[in-house]
C-alpha cells in the first residue's frame, strides 16, 4: 500500500504487529498490521463494530491483544499498563470527572505526576488557551455545553504532552455545525502540537477532511490504508468504494490494455494491472458522470427518473435501457423524463479485482 | 477474574451469618431434639394441628387487613406528595421519615400510653363521661400497631413510581377525553402498580412475621406466628417445633413474594 502524503510525517511512532483480538471466542480484530508515523494524523474509519475502537483501546492500554505486539517508539509495550504509557485519550462522551471543576480536570494528570503548583498552573493555562477556554477554570463540568466539555477533554489530554493523542469518536455527540468547526480546529491543533493523532470515526467525510492517512476497517480486518485522496479515488474493494463517498458499482470485463467493457459499452481506462478478459468491478463516482442534454453526445443514454436539489449540486437518478440505475451528481439539472447522454473520462473509471468468496483479505 | 478478592470477606461473612443459620434452622426442623441425627417430620406435623393452623391463619388475616389499610391510607398520601411542588416535596418526605428514627419498639410502646385504660384517650373520654373503653389487647390494637409502623413502606414505593410518571401521559388521557377519575383509573393507577405491589410486599412481610407488636399491643393473649416461634425458642425450648414454624413462615414469605414477583422491586438480579 502506498502512502502518497508524507509532507510533515516523520519516523515510525507506533507499530501494530499481527494483532489478533478475541472477546469470548469471537474475533474482533484479525491480522492487524499498521505503522503510524510521528506527527501523523491517522484515522481509523469503519462502521460500528468493525473493531476500530478496540484497536484504539489496545494502543491506549485498556485492552490487551490476544496475540501480536504493540510497538511504541520501537519498544514492545504489550505489558505496560495504561497509566504508564505516553499516550493520552480523548474519550467518547469525554469521561470528564464530574466531581472536579474544569481546572482540576485538566490538572488531574499533572497532579498525579506530582508536578509543582506553578508548573501545573502554567500548563493548565496554556492548555486552556489552546482550546480557547480561558476563564472557565472554576466552572463545573455540568455547567458546560457539549462543545465546551469536548474542549476540556482535549485540554485534559494534551496538557500531559503525550507523544500520541488517541481520539475515540470525539465529535460524535456534537451537532453538525459544531462538528465541522471542531474538525478544522483539531487538525490545526495537531499541527500546532506536532504530535501524532489517532482518530476513530465512522464518519467518512470527517476522516477525509482531517487525516493524513485513513485506515478503512470492516469486521476486524483492515481493508485499505492510504491518504484520503488515495482511498477515495482508488478504493481497493467494493466495501471501501461503497463506504467512502457515493459510488456506482458495475460488473465489467477487462478487454485489453486500457480498455474495459461495462453497461454494454467499451470505455478507455487507465488501469493496467488486469489480464485480458478478466472479470472486474467498475467503480464510478456520481460526480464523475458527465451529462449532456443531447443523448447523442454521450456514450450511454439514460432517462432521468428523479431529481433532488442538494445545495451545491443536483442528485439525479437516471435509468438506462438495460435497467441499470445511475446516480449522478451534477451542477446542471436535467428534468425528469428527459433522455440524457452520459460519458465518463478514462481516469474516472476505477477498476477493482473481483472479490473472492469467503473472508476477504484485501489489506496488504 | 481480577480483583475478586474484594468480594471474599463479604461473601464469606454473608454465607456464615445468613445462609448457615438458615440451614441450621432447617436441620433442627427435621431432626429429633437431642436425638442425634434421627430424622423426623413430627415438627411439621404439629404445625398442621388445628390450634396452630388457626394461629397461622390469624396472622395472615391480620397482615392482610393491615396491608389493605396501609394501601387505603397510603396511596392518597403518595399521590399528594408526588403532586406537591418540588420545594415542598423534600420537606414532606423528611416529615414522613422522622418518626422512623424513633426506635420501632419505642413507637409501639408509645401507643400503650395513649390507649391503655388510664391512658390519654380514656382520660379524654372520662372528661365527657364515657368509658373507660378497653382499647388495647384486641385485634384492632394489633392492626393499628402494624399500620402505624409500616405505612411508610407503602407510601414510599408508590410515591417513587408516581413521581417518575410522565405528567404528559395524564394530559394525553385528558386530551383524549378522559375525565380525572377515568384518567386515574385507566392511566395513573395501572402505571403505579409496580409501586403498589412492592408496597404491599413491604407491608405484608413484616406484618405477618411480627411478634413484638402483638406482644405489646395484643398483651400476650393474642398469639401470632411470631409469638409462637418466640415461645418455642425462649420459653418451652422446643427448637424443633420452633424451627418448623420458622421454615413455614419463610415459605409463606416466598409464596407472597412469588405472587408479587411481577413488580421489579429487586431488579439487581436478585431473588425470584
Amino acid at each position, binding site marked *: 500500500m502506498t502512502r502518497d502524503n508524507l509532507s510533515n510525517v516523520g519516523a515510525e511512532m507506533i507499530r501494530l504487529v499481527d494483532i489478533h483480538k478475541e472477546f469470548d471466542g469471537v474475533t474482533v480484530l484479525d491480522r492487524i498490521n499498521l505503522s503510524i508515523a510521528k506527527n501523523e494524523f491517522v484515522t481509523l474509519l469503519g462502521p460500528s463494530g468493525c473493531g476500530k475502537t478496540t484497536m484504539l483501546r489496545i494502543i491506549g492500554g*485498556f485492552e490487551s491483544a490476544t496475540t501480536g505486539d504493540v510497538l511504541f517508539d520501537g519498544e514492545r509495550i504489550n505489558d505496560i*499498563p495504561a*497509566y504508564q504509557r505516553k*499516550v493520552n485519550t480523548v*474519550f467518547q462522551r469525554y469521561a470528564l*470527572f*464530574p*466531581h472536579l471543576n474544569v481546572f482540576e480536570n485538566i490538572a*488531574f494528570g499533572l497532579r*498525579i505526576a506530582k508536578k509543582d503548583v506553578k508548573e501545573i498552573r502554567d500548563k493548565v493555562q496554556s492548555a486552556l488557551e489552546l482550546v480557547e477556554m480561558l476563564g472557565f477554570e472554576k466552572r*463545573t463540568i*455540568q455547567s458546560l455545553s457539549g462543545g465546551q466539555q469536548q474542549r476540556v477533554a482535549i485540554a485534559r*489530554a494534551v496538557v500531559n504532552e503525550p507523544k500520541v493523542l488517541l481520539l475515540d469518536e470525539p465529535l460524535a455527540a456534537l451537532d453538525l455545525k459544531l462538528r465541522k468547526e471542531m474538525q478544522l480546529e483539531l487538525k490545526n491543533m495537531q499541527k500546532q502540537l506536532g504530535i501524532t493523532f489517532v482518530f476513530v470515526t465512522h464518519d467518512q467525510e470527517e476522516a477525509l477532511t482531517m487525516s493524513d492517512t485513513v485506515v478503512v476497517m470492516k469486521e476486524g480486518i483492515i481493508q485499505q490504508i492510504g491518504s484520503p485522496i488515495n482511498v477515495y479515488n482508488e478504493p481497493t474493494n467494493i466495501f471501501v468504494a461503497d463506504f467512502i463517498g457515493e459510488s456506482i458499482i458495475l460488473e465489467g470485463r477487462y478487454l485489453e490494455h486500457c480498455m474495459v467493457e461495462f453497461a454494454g459499452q467499451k470505455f478507455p481506462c487507465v488501469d493496467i494491472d488486469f489480464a485480458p478478459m478478466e472479470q472486474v468491478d467498475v467503480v464510478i463516482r456520481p460526480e464523475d458522470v458527465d451529462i449532456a442534454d443531447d443523448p447523442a453526445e454521450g456514450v450511454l443514454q439514460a432517462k432521468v427518473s428523479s431529481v433532488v436539489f442538494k445545495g451545491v449540486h443536483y442528485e439525479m437518478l437516471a435509468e438506462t435501457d438495460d435497467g441499470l440505475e445511475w446516480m449522478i451528481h451534477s451542477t446542471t439539472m436535467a428534468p425528469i423524463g428527459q433522455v440524457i447522454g452520459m460519458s465518463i473520462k478514462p481516469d474516472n473509471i476505477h477498476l477493482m479485482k473481483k472479490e473472492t468468496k469467503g473472508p476477504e483479505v484485501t489489506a496488504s | *477474574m481480577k*480483583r*475478586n478478592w*474484594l*468480594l471474599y470477606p*463479604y*461473601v464469606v*461473612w*454473608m454465607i456464615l*451469618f*445468613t*445462609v448457615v*443459620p*438458615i440451614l*441450621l*434452622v432447617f436441620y433442627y426442623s427435621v431432626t429429633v431434639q437431642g436425638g442425634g441425627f434421627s430424622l423426623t417430620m413430627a415438627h411439621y406435623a404439629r404445625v398442621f394441628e388445628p390450634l396452630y393452623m388457626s394461629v397461622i391463619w390469624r396472622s395472615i388475616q391480620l397482615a392482610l387487613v393491615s396491608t389493605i389499610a396501609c394501601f387505603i391510607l397510603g396511596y*392518597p398520601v403518595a399521590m*399528594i406528595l408526588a403532586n406537591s411542588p418540588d420545594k415542598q416535596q*423534600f420537606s414532606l418526605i*423528611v416529615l414522613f421519615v422522622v*418518626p*422512623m428514627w*424513633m*426506635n*420501632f419498639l*419505642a413507637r409501639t*410502646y*408509645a401507643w*400503650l*400510653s*395513649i390507649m391503655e385504660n*388510664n391512658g*390519654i384517650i380514656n*382520660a379524654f373520654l372520662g372528661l365527657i363521661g364515657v368509658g373507660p373503653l378497653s382499647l388495647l389487647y384486641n385485634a384492632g390494637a394489633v392492626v393499628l400497631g402494624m399500620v402505624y409502623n409500616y*405505612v411508610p413502606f407503602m407510601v414510599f414505593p408508590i410515591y417513587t413510581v408516581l413521581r417518575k410518571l410522565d405528567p404528559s401521559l395524564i394530559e394525553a388521557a385528558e386530551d383524549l377525553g378522559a375525565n380525572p377519575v377515568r384518567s386515574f383509573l385507566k392511566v395513573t393507577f395501572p402505571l403505579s402498580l409496580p409501586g403498589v405491589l412492592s408496597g404491599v410486599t413491604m407491608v405484608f*412481610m*413484616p406484618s405477618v*412475621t411480627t*411478634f413484638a407488636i402483638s406482644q*405489646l399491643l395484643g398483651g400476650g393473649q393474642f398469639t401470632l406466628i411470631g409469638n409462637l416461634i*418466640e415461645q418455642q425458642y425462649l420459653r418451652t425450648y422446643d427448637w424443633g417445633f420452633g*424451627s418448623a414454624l*420458622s421454615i413455614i*413462615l419463610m415459605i409463606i414469605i416466598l409464596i407472597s413474594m412469588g405472587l408479587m414477583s411481577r413488580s421489579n422491586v429487586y431488579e*439487581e438480579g*436478585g*431473588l425470584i
Partner: protein
Amino acid sequence: MRAILKKCYLWLIFIFLYAPILVLILFSFNVSRSRGNWGGLSLRWYGELFQDRAIMTALGNTVLIALVAAAVSAAVGTVAAVGIYRLKGWKKSFVMNITYLPILNPDIVIGISMMILFIAMSFPRGMASLIVSHITFGLPYGVISVLPKLAQLDPQIFDAALDLGATPREAYFKVILPQILPGVFTGFLLAFTMSVDDFVVSFFVTGNGVANLAISIYSMSRRGINPKINAVLTLLFIAVAAMMYLIQRRLRKSSREAV
C-alpha cells in the same frame, strides 16, 4: 377546595404518625408517674435517668452498636459493591441473592437462626453477638446504596484516570470514591437507622444480661411504666434527628453544588 382537602388529609396522617412520639416526649417532662395524668412540667425523669446505670448502659450500647455496625457495613459494603459491579451471570445473581436474603428474611427468623448459630459455635453472646448480627443485616444496605451509584458512573471514567497516569488504586480513591461517596453515606445512614431501630434480632441474639435500649424497654414494659424510658427515648430521638438533619443538609448542599 380540593387543595384544602388534600392538606387536611396530610395533616391527619402526620398527626397519626407523630401523636405517639409527641405523647412520649411530652410525658418525659411530666412530674407524675402516671401516663394518663398530667402533673406539670419537670425534668425529674431526666435527673433520675442519669442516675440509672442500667438505662444509661443500654443507651451507650445502642449507640456503640449502631456506630460500629454502620461503619463496617458502609466500608465493607462499598468494597463488596465494587466487586459485585464487575461480576456477571450466575455469580452476580448468587451474590445478589445472598445480599437480599437478610433484607427479605423476616427479622424473627434472622434472630432465632443467628441465636442458634451463636449457641452452636459457642460464640460469646452479648456485645459481640449483637455487633455481628447488626453488621449482618446492615451490610446489604451498604451494598445496595453504593451499587446504583456505580451504575451511574461513566464507564470510561476509570479508564480516563488510568489514561492520565493514575494507578488503579489512585483511580479508585481519586475518581471512583468521590463520586460514589453519597451512596456510601446513604449506606451508613441506613445501616445506622436499622441498627437503632432493631429490637427483634437483638432480643434473640443477646445474652449474659447485655441489653440495648429496645431490649430494656421491652423488659420494662412488662414490669409497668417507667417514665425514665420516655426521657431516654426523647434524648435518643433528638440526637438521631439532629444527626440526620445535619448530614442530609450537607448532602443536599453538595448535590446542589454539583448541579
